């Protein structure tokens, strides 16, 4: 009898959790349609991603929350002062990575202002996988309505204003692996800068969880010990 309440509570809890997780799982993969790539935060990948970002993306996009100083300060990126100085030219260390393209010019050329990419992987369902899919998603419109270069299989509505940044559409097969790696690297890089303390957070988290397991275990022993007094 005593257990019934607990059981029913547990049942509705589990049911609730399952109900809640179902759409989350689905939305996490963008309706299951996105390509999957391996997002990694090793130094090589992140540096390659940074290069793709500064050489390609920064033509139009900014990442204003990532400052030149951050490139040195985040150990995962770990650029040297000389490398940063070369990259920034006459920009200040505390300035963000901002594109030369003015919003007015962008609007004139592409019809809208390209979004800032600082937190882009957090602002799109699918995160890094979404960016990867987008970069490798330029195709011919099967219905022939959207001109080549503006049709993207993974963009909502398929008509994308961004011209094929990695020149994926017309690449020949020998380049496929290289372009996929570039897309993977820049997706990893953007995922990293979206939450630059995530690795540190997880490192600390492991210690915290370990400590809490110990604390909870001791509290459980103590509770059992103290409650020996209570006769039911």
């Amino acid at each position, binding site marked *: 009898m005593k257990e019934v309440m607990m059981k029913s509570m547990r049942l509705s809890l589990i049911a609730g959790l399952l109900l809640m997780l179902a759409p989350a799982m689905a939305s996490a993969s963008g309706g299951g349609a996105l390509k999957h790539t391996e997002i990694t935060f090793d130094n090589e990948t992140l540096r390659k991603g940074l290069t793709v970002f500064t050489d390609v993306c920064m033509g139009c996009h900014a990442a204003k929350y990532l*400052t030149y*100083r951050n490139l040195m*300060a985040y150990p995962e990126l770990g650029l040297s002062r000389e490398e940063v100085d070369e990259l920034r030219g006459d920009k200040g*260390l*505390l300035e963000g990575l901002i594109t030369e393209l003015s919003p007015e010019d962008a609007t004139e050329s592409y019809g809208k202002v390209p979004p800032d990419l600082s937190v882009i992987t957090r602002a799109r369902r699918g995160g890094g996988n979404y960016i990867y899919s987008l970069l490798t998603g330029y195709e011919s419109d099967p219905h022939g309505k959207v001109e080549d270069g503006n049709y993207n299989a993974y963009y909502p509505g398929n008509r994308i204003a961004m011209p094929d940044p990695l020149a994926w559409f017309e690449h020949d097969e020998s380049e496929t692996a290289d372009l996929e790696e570039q897309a993977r690297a820049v997706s990893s890089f953007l995922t990293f800068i979206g939450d630059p303390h995530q690795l540190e957070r997880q490192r600390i988290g492991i210690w915290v969880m370990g*400590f809490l397991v*110990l*604390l909870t275990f*001791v*509290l459980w*022993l*103590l509770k059992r*010990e*103290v409650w*020996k*007094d209570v006769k039911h």
Partner: protein
Amino acid sequence: MTDKADHSRRNFLYVAAGGLGAVAAGATAVPFVGSMFPAADTLAASKTEYDVSTVVEGQLVVIQWQGKPVFVVNRTADMLNRVKGHDDLLKDPMSQAIDAVQAEWMDTDEKRIYRAIKPEILIVVASCTHLGCIPLFKPTSGREDWGDSVPENWAGGWHCPCHGSFYDLSARVVNGSPAPQNLHVMPYKYKTDSVVLIG
């Protein structure tokens, strides 16, 4: 109820739980207290560049460094002369009292007295070492320009309006002032002939 063995076990568990709880509380306090220290970008913004050639001879300019005011004075030959000859009136004529009043480049007596890399360009933190007000620049000697706000034998320097501290033209504190130390010098170096990097 409980026997003695039980009691020692119980006490041990109390102490263990209490100890771990204290560790948890202490560890939790670290990020909160830590967050109140200057942020990464604030720390990085702690350097200031300034072109001292923009300061006219005999003039004082107040600039900002780490959000604090800094005096940059272009001292005339006459002002440099008036730095000397009153060491007996100063608390710390050779700027030796604490680290903050000296700098690596103060390797000769001359530099300790002028308190500047280039003698004519004096750069010091503009906060009175008493309680942090900004002293008033009273560069001419005697009482002619300043009335009795300065002593009779005034050789020129600074007068703090808050609590009446006096400094000479090398920003050294004068005896009888409530301020304990000379005005502080911050680390700086010349990047070019006229541009200093402060911090």
